[in-house]
């Protein structure tokens, strides 16, 4: 697609011909944009599988007793659902897809620092995913430990725990390498003149995230290795009959897994921080506060893991200590919310689909976050720990937060990635259905959770049934909305009308280059404005 009038030949990254052809031009691509898309397709596939599993659970839970599956199957289903969604969807989700695609562009670079390493990360991501799938098919049957792999159940059950943990180990490696790549890229590749404090806020969020990925993931790596060793050789780190300590496993697991929840949410917050100024045509309020709060969340977030263990028999001192820190880590999140809403004040607000998703993100995030406060308080945690209240909390904050941010990001950057535009009206309708279905699906779970419905329950007492039915109906509404949304996007990519370079009148660098971008992103060195969100 050469353009006769311009002097430099412009070829979009989608059509660029490299050394390889056809499908290999993708698998062997080192271009950060192609790798971003590769991650996106893989992750959407996993999301689709995981979501179907979620729906199956909802159908099973429509009535007490056996509805469509046996207890052992149910246990396998929520385990796979958790592993898929956490390790293969939300942890890589925003940073590997949109981070890869837009981080270099946003800081005015041609690519990430180590393109080949980037490609390697994708490969091992796929290898890990294949192992996770293999764990389902192998002889001993799907693992049934829950995504938390708590010992000593995980050291004694007869299912394929080794394969599943090895998969999580490999996926963790991919996550580490992506984080490493991003940190180096942000330090070394910023366009001349771009200081740390005039970087856009999505890269800031990615920077904080990358540090968590880099420093927390090795801990789970070694923990899973120990678990594997324990299963193979009766080593006894965690099995109390061999002198080990199951609580130690929980400590090690959450030392990683709590910071990991911030790996999910920080990039999501970054996306929202990009979208709001664009659709308000207004410079972001409290730039520095938002940037620094990302680092604060990442830093303090390392020290609060014990709030998953209040009832495990931890010492009293540890309980209050972790509770206190948990409450403190909520404050930087609150600051971000306040800044987003202030940015809307006296703006010129254009309610397009990405902005709708961003608004609903804020709403759902507040619900998810404040129910996190209820969980973080020791007294109330005793009541709701390991009940469906927790399930509702993390679906609100993971799906409602990170998931909605992912949808927002797709709708926001879609024209840049594909050079085409989707249908606004259909997108709005899909949003409405999703939002309604989502709340119907998860809100009832807060209520039955407070009343005492434990999580990971195949069967349940009859008094919870009404809420479970409402919740299941919500699940079906949600699905129809998601199908409409995906259909709309696919239609957009195939037949949508051509998108201009800057459809939303955004101010950051990605909107200053053609859609879709060329292989090298920038044909001439980009001009760095002091404030990335400069309007008028």
């Amino acid at each position: 697609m050469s353009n006769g009038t311009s002097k430099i030949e412009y070829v979009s990254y989608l059509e660029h011909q490299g050394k390889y052809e056809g499908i290999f031009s993708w698998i062997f691509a080192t271009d950060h944009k192609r790798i971003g898309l590769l991650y996106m397709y893989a992750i959407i596939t996993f999301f689709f599988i995981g979501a179907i599993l979620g729906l199956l659970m909802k159908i099973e839970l429509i009535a007490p007793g056996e509805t469509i599956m046996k207890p052992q199957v149910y246990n396998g289903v929520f385990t796979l659902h958790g592993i898929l969604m956490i390790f293969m969807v939300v942890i890589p989700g925003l940073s590997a897809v949109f981070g890869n695609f837009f981080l270099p562009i946003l800081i005015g670079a041609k690519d990430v620092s180590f393109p080949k390493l980037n490609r390697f990360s994708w490969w091992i991501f796929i290898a890990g995913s294949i192992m996770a799938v293999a764990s389902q098919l192998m002889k001993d049957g799907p693992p049934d430990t829950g995504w938390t792999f708590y010992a000593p159940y995980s050291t004694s059950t007869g299912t394929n725990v080794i394969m599943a943990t090895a998969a999580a180990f490999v996926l963790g490696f991919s996550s580490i390498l992506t984080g490493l790549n991003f940190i180096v890229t942000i330090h070394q590749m910023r366009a001349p003149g771009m200081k740390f404090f005039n970087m856009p806020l999505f890269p800031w969020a990615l920077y904080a995230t990358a540090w968590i990925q880099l420093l927390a993931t090795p801990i789970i790596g070694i923990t899973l290795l120990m678990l594997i060793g324990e299963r193979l050789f009766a080593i006894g780190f965690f099995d109390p009959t061999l002198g080990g300590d199951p609580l130690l496993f929980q400590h090690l697991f959450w030392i990683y897994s709590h910071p990991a929840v911030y790996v999910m949410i920080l990039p999501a917050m970054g996306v929202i921080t990009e979208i709001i100024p664009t659709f308000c045509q207004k410079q972001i309020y409290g730039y520095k506060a938002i940037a620094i709060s990302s680092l604060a969340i990442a830093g303090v977030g390392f020290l609060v893991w014990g709030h998953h263990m209040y009832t495990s028999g931890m010492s009293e001192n540890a309980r209050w200590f972790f509770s206190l820190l948990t409450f403190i880590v909520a404050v930087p999140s609150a600051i971000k919310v306040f800044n987003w809403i202030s940015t809307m004040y006296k703006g010129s607000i254009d309610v397009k689909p990405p902005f709708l998703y961003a608004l609903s993100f804020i709403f759902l995030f507040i619900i998810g976050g404040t129910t996190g406060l209820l969980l973080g308080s020791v007294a109330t945690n005793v009541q709701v720990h390991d009940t469906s209240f927790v399930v509702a909390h993390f679906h609100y904050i993971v799906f409602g937060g990170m998931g909605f941010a992912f949808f927002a990001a797709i709708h926001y950057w879609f024209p840049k990635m594909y050079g085409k535009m989707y249908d606004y009206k259909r997108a709005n309708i899909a949003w409405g259905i999703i939002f309604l279905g989502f709340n119907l699906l998860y809100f009832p779970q807060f209520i039955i959770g407070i009343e005492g419905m434990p999580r990971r329950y195949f069967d349940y007492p009859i008094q919870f049934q009404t809420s479970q039915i409402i919740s299941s109906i919500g699940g079906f509404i949600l699905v129809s909305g998601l199908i409409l949304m995906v259909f709309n996007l696919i239609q957009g990519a195939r037949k949508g009308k051509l998108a201009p370079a800057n459809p939303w009148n955004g101010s950051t660098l990605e909107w200053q280059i053609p859609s879709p971008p060329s292989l090298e992103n920038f044909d001439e060195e980009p001009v760095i404005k002091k404030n990335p969100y400069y309007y008028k």
Partner: protein
Amino acid sequence: MSENKLHIEEHRDDEASKLGMWLFIFTELLLFGGLFLVYSIFRAQYTTSFHESSLELSVTIGAINTIVLLFSSMTIAMALSAIQKNNKKLALILIGITLFCAAIFLFNKYFEWGAKIEHGLYPGSTLMTLLDRGHLLYFSLYFFMTGLHALHIVIGMILLIVCYFKVKSQNINNQNYVLLENGALYWHLVDLIWIFLFPLIYLIT
């Protein structure tokens, strides 16, 4: 178009590679960090058993290995200086010595482990399950930590062998030696971890 492609692949930034290596070292430190955490918790719980079991290890072998590793760490640092001073021959010799030391280290480890295995002490053995809990944990940790460390030695050796040949073929020279610098950094990491492993496993009583 082909010019574009070349541009991306030939982009070289030594600062970036070095930073990348350091970040990788951070993850390795925390990987072992997890093990040190487990070690310290169990040691606090089973102090006397840990003390008794550590007596069964030979401090001499441990000390020899420590000295060998420290020495190799110095030689590889010198190799880097030699390359920077454009003294290819000296650099090759120094890398060779480092590799030799690594081999000695593994050789010692082999004997040390071999002796334990001969006594029926290895993960999963009958004897292990009969030990009292503290001893079992101590030896499990011993095998796990030194095993993982030995694995790192092997990886480090592979890296240094690559460096050796690259120095030989002039691919590493006094203008472009970041690979050797990173290989050396990795080797120092292995040494650094041993500096903590040695007293914790062999000495503290």
